């Protein structure tokens, strides 16, 4: 006996009972909304989580997942160690228990690719005679170089330093990002045929004009490597460091004598990194930050780790002068208590000094990690607003010159990588006469968190990457302190994903639709497991409401 509830009968206007006819509608995953760069996060997690349905072995699934990341980001092992992972802040799973450990999973896949020697993907473009130049071998420049090289362009990267990596190498301490990991991921880019010219400083070793003549196009990924100092009395003189300078010296393996008592000024990652390096050098370290903990831009767990390693954190305090002996030797830093006023233009609450609240801290040296700016030497002819280069919305800063990364304003490494990629896509489309509207970021509808059926998965805690206790970490010096999660942990973590807004092949719609509107597809893949035919639909909407990921919705 058949039922034709969805067919003839009362017209829509006359209907007494509601009609819930489903459509398949992929949505933007919230992790994606939050992520600067890691591509289709839901897609690469789903590739591993759903490997049983797509008949992939574990290794095949890992390889495929890594390729999804590497398509947009050639540094998963690197970012898996240092990214502040804003994607996790948007993860819907936080509504149930804890967000997915996306960053830790990305690191696992990045390490897998290094271990297995997986090459970065190449596009099927024919060889191209265009020779593009890249200034700066940091995350932005290398991302651009990778995206152009894979498309068949000849690429040369110039960098003033003696090693590639930019701030990834000189601004991130080795205990967070071992040089071997960065080297391995850079080597994958060089393996695509990218030519690397080190110790080549624009403006000194080669002029911008020469580069313009040499290359059909130029990309500037010069970063912002000059730390800003403090303009307070006594700040000029010995034992004063900027955060970037201090970290660069440390990362080059140089012995830096900061004395026993170090004061670090700032609340960002550079400040925390500098403080933890100084602590590893045996100093007693105090961080002074003028706002509250809530406003600290540094990664939350890095702050926790710093405290666990014995670093003192004084909040709502700013230095007002540095006390020195007659011979210039630093003896103390005088600071002042602050209170938070209404939010300023940045959206953060503005710190205001509290008069009469001055206090002093004994100090042998001070590291100011308050901000950093690009070095524009040799590039003065380009548009800039004060310290920063200014590009148009397409990233162009003149004819055949593109720019991205920190030179336009400070951001996280993921943002620099995405700017390099977008510039490459832009340039490639322009040189080949392609339509950029076919860009890789599809405009999908947003997903309401109410559509996720949290109760369909058991509660579970997110995986915590293994880490030694604070005192043992200090004893290990610059050895990496956080370990990669195990394969077992990785596989458990991917299972926690709700695949928000994309079909995960849970089969509930198929199983509970007794009229048989859903048909399994032959070649299943994440996001596509069933076709839908509504000829026999009863319009009950059960398929829509049992869909745990919000993929099905009412027409």
């Amino acid at each position: 006996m058949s039922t034709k509830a969805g067919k003839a009968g009362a017209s829509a206007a006359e209907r007494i009972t509601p009609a819930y006819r489903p459509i398949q509608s992929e949505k933007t995953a919230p992790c994606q909304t939050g992520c600067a760069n890691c591509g289709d996060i839901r897609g690469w997690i789903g590739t591993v989580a759903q490997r049983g349905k797509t008949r992939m072995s574990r290794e095949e699934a890992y390889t495929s997942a890594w390729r999804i990341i590497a398509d947009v980001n050639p540094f998963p092992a690197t970012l898996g160690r240092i990214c502040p992972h804003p994607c996790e802040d948007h993860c819907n799973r936080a509504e149930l228990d804890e967000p997915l450990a996306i960053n830790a999973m990305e690191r696992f896949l990045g390490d897998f690719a290094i271990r297995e020697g997986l090459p970065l993907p190449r596009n099927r473009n024919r060889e191209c005679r265009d020779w593009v130049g890249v200034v700066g071998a940091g995350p932005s420049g290398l991302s651009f170089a990778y995206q152009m090289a894979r498309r068949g362009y000849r690429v040369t990267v110039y960098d003033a330093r003696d090693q590639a990596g930019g701030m990834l190498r000189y601004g991130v301490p080795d205990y967070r990002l071992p040089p071997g990991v960065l080297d391995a991921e850079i080597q994958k880019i060089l393996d695509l045929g990218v030519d690397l010219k080190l110790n080549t400083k624009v403006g000194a070793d080669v002029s911008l004009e020469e580069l313009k003549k040499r290359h059909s196009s130029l990309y500037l990924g010069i970063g912002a490597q000059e730390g800003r100092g403090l303009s307070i009395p006594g700040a000029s003189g010995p034992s004063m460091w900027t955060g970037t300078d201090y970290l660069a010296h440390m990362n080059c393996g140089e012995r830096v004598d900061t004395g026993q008592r170090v004061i670090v000024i700032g609340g960002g990652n550079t400040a925390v990194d500098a403080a933890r390096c100084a602590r590893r050098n045996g100093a007693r370290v105090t961080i002074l930050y003028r706002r509250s903990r809530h406003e600290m831009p540094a990664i939350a767990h890095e702050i926790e780790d710093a405290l666990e390693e014995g670093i003192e954190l004084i909040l709502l305090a700013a230095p007002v002068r540095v006390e020195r002996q007659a011979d210039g030797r630093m003896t103390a830093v005088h600071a002042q208590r602050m209170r938070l006023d209404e939010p300023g233009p940045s959206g953060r609450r503005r710190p205001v000094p509290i008069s009469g609240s001055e206090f002093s801290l004994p100090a042998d040296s001070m590291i100011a990690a308050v901000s950093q700016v690009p070095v524009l030497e040799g590039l003065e002819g380009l548009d800039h607003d004060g310290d920063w280069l200014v590009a148009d919305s397409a990233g162009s800063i003149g004819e055949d010159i593109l720019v991205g990364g920190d030179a336009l304003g400070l951001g996280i490494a993921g943002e620099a990588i995405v700017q390099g990629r977008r510039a490459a896509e832009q340039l490639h489309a322009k040189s080949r006469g392609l339509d950029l509207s076919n860009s890789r970021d599809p405009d999908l509808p947003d997903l309401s968190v109410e559509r996720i059926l949290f109760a369909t998965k058991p509660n579970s805690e997110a995986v915590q990457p293994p880490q030694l206790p604070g005192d043992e970490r200090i004893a290990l010096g610059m050895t990496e302190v956080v370990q990669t999660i195990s394969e077992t942990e990785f596989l458990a973590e991917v299972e926690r994903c709700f695949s928000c807004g994309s079909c995960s092949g849970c089969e509930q719609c198929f199983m509970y639709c007794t009229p048989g509107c859903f048909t399994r597809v032959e070649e299943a893949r994440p996001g596509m497991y069933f076709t839908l035919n509504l000829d026999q639909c009863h319009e009950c909407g059960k398929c829509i409401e049992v869909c745990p990921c919000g993929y099905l919705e009412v027409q």
Partner: protein
Amino acid sequence: MGLSTQASVADSFSRIIEDEEKDFALRDGSRIAVVGSGPAGSFFSYFLLKMANAIDLEVEVDIFEPRSFKYCGPAGCNHCGGIVSESLVQILAAEGIVLPRRVVQRGVESYVVHMDVGNVAIESPVHEQRIAALYRGNGPRDGGDAPMESFDGYLQGMATQQGAEIVRQLITGMECRNGLPELKFADGETKTYDLVAVATGVNSNFIQLLDDLPGDFEPPKTTRGYICEFHSTEEEILKILGRSVHVFLLDIPRFEFAAIIPKGQFATVVMVGEDLDQELVHTFLNDPVVRRTFPTDTVPCVCSCSPLINLGARKRPYGNRVVMIGDSGVTRLYKDGIGAAFRTGKAAATTAVFHGVAAEDFEKHFWPTCKSIANDNAIGKVMFATNAVMKNSRITRRAMLRMAQREQDKPSAKPHMSSLLWNMFTGSAPYWEMFRGTLHPGFISKLLYNLAAGLWPKTKNAKVKERVA
């Protein structure tokens, strides 16, 4: 339904059935899978663990249920009108299962039978026995603030208290692995068990996997019902429907019968008929008799579905290490599906714990329970067919109504027709008992008298008109 694994499942099941060499007793450490956590699955798990515990047998029970009864609407629903006879509530209480008030929303005090010739309110024939309205899931769509708790969710909790584990995974296949049933999950993983109890009902395509099995595994026949939920305030529903379930016996083509059940802020409309479609639903809800009782233009419909209804017994609802309980196997015709789930679930659990999990164990100790239900259903079919014939004739409709009205007006009179209608609608008594009642000389003589009185010009409309007014 194109399920790719059907053929292989059929083959493996045959092997399971033929596997006579194995030891079929449950032992310490035995693992039991229950596919589906409706009443049958939960009752089975509850009784199995309770009995196992009583004889110091340590077994593991995994209940596979991907859905959560926390959700309103279809996501947490189990397609049911939601009427439980108080007799079942009392039977459960005798087993130590006391259903709390927030689960069983008591308060339905009578049935009102509506026909085009009038209506009659039938009070509970035994005043201590009322009927209970409940929601299998967490209520219909938009029912988030309604003070209710899922009946199925409560039973599931009972099973987990005994030690059952709820596994939120969908089972998509079953095969045989080294003589043991192996379940396949949606993610491609598999797991073997010593016993699998299938309790998926008939509204899941999982049953299709079993329906392709050879020989005696012929599936139960099904038809489609129609259930829709109307939402208003509790006061409005009470004002419109009172504390009565309203049953409609109308002469509409393809229409069998329908009931409107008040449940707090909601009213559940349940329809049974032939080839139910929107047109028939529309015709029914716009019928003048229905509109007088339940004007749908003031109470919006928020939820509807066309669930499959089990019409008969699976011929052989068991095999070696496999047993089908509740609607998946055998249930009562149209009524008291929860009662049948209780009986078959408990019988299967008793068999597994005390006798074994071989096909012959189930045949000897589980099948008799199923068979008694199946035999009773055969009588039920005759009863419903007779009812359909009587409902379609104005003369017999009037006779039924007159007879029931007179019985209700005279509490001292023996309530032959009232009891019959009450039991037909509530499922409180077996069909054979109802049938026996219709053979009572008092029933036959009174029915004949009312048939004649209905035909006599002076008396034909008197009582009926009074009621309609």
